[in-house]
């Protein structure tokens, strides 16, 4: 098993595959308190010009963060994560969250983040800073 300390520039992080559905979106609305109808009411979302309900951006970001925390384990900590929501994610999409080491120092890693849907469209891009416990 490769340790955090072994990662070098251009190494890829383990990918996380995630398939959101309506039940999860509803569950996330309840857990987060974000009941914006664009996530829950298909007619409302269509009228708002979104073409149907969309998954909470923060739920997609949380999956990216889960990819990172799984990978980091107890060997370090996430000190910064920033993302741009490039394209809407919809229930039923299959999303793959991936990352690439972009820079490293003795005790820190900087990673590029990207998530794509099953149509190979980029839905999220971003950056993360990880501190390694020495």
């Amino acid at each position: 098993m490769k340790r955090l300390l072994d990662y070098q520039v251009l190494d890829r992080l383990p990918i996380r595959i995630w398939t959101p559905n309506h039940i999860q979106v509803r569950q996330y609305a309840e857990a987060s308190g974000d009941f914006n109808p664009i996530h829950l009411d298909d007619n409302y979302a269509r009228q708002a010009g979104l073409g149907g309900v969309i998954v909470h951006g923060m739920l997609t970001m949380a999956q990216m963060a889960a990819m990172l925390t799984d990978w980091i384990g107890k060997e370090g900590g996430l000190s910064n994560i920033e993302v741009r929501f490039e394209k809407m994610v919809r229930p039923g999409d299959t999303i793959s969250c991936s990352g690439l080491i972009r820079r490293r120092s003795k005790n820190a890693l900087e990673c590029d983040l990207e998530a794509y849907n099953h149509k190979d469209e980029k839905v999220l891009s971003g950056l993360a800073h990880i501190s390694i416990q020495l």
Partner: protein
Amino acid sequence: MIGKELIGKESESVVIKIRSEEVHRFTEALGIPFSHLVPPTYVGILSQASIPGFEAPLPGMIHGEQKITYLRPLYVGDCLTSKRRIKDVYERKGKLGSVTIMVIETSGYDLAGELIFTSSSTLIAPAKVESE
């Protein structure tokens, strides 16, 4: 209506305890195992004091960007004070016409007043919707 006059407006500070049941509900919704180390995006959903003169989300508003920075880890059971502030409001012309961009930052401090995290949301609203 949102405009530049909102820049700098902030909420009051609210005291929040990171509760095990709420974190459980959150990790269950995400489909990840519960841990005492709070999931990184959890601070994005902390109960938030309202900012006088502004109520989000506005109809049609979408989430464009999010940035979360931790100065130290956050654990279940921690107590903190949190505050929201409107950092910026500006208009931008894009492919879909003119939109209003709003940046709202939430900061969390421990009870000694040390910063634990900042979480900054960039929200995008169609600029002309309000006048309909």
